[in-house]
């Protein structure tokens, strides 16, 4: 419930990508984002990188990894392994996920959803 609400909110507060318009041949930036972090990952990029991280985990058989696996049910990991995977994902995407939320991430779709909707994922 809370994660669904969170993802809905995060989906609505996307910062717009800066638009460029052409005035008399020169390109002027009309809207400049206030921070250097103005590019967001697209979905496919997130999926690929999440899968790469999971495939690199030593106890995982890379052939079994698809975008909709559950860490414990499908990959045969235990709960501490999934903690390690979530931490690896945090490092890959330079995120800081609060403990309680990280604890809820137990499958690939959830991880992709969370990272894709996170405004600071990079």
């Amino acid at each position, binding site marked *: 419930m809370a994660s669904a609400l969170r993802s809905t909110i995060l989906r609505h507060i996307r910062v717009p990508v800066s638009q460029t318009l052409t005035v008399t041949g020169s390109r002027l930036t009309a809207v400049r984002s*206030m921070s250097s972090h103005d590019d967001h990952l697209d979905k496919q990029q997130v999926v690929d990188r999440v899968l790469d991280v999971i495939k690199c985990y030593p106890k995982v058989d890379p052939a079994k990894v698809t975008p909709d696996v559950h860490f414990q049910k499908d990959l045969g990991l235990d709960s501490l392994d999934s903690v390690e995977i979530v931490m690896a994902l945090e490092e890959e995407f330079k995120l*800081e996920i609060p403990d309680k939320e*990280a604890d809820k991430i137990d499958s690939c779709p959830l991880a992709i959803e969370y990272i894709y909707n996170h405004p600071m994922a990079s």
Partner: protein
Amino acid sequence: MSVVSYLARRAAQKERVRILYRRALKDTLNWAVHRHLFYPDADALRERFEANRNVEDIELIERMITAGEAAHDKWRHPDPYIVPWAPGGSKFCRNPTPPAGIEIVYNYGREDND
């Protein structure tokens, strides 16, 4: 004790263990100066958790988790790595989003001169 409350208590204990492991693993990374020093430390930490994998007595588990949390609390890193934008990080609130409705017009006045 009823089965439901037993299971609820076990679920709460499992969550505490996961969060304790997560925090301890992060602190292992904070204490390790290099990545290659982190891996054996992380394995040792995992061993310490795995050693008590098959404990069944719920009261004993409770005491062990409390002891583990106390040990972790004593061992916490004084200056942990925090992702820059996160609360406590070096870039936290550095570029706050301007309030809605305010925008900067960068080509102001240009329309008169051209």
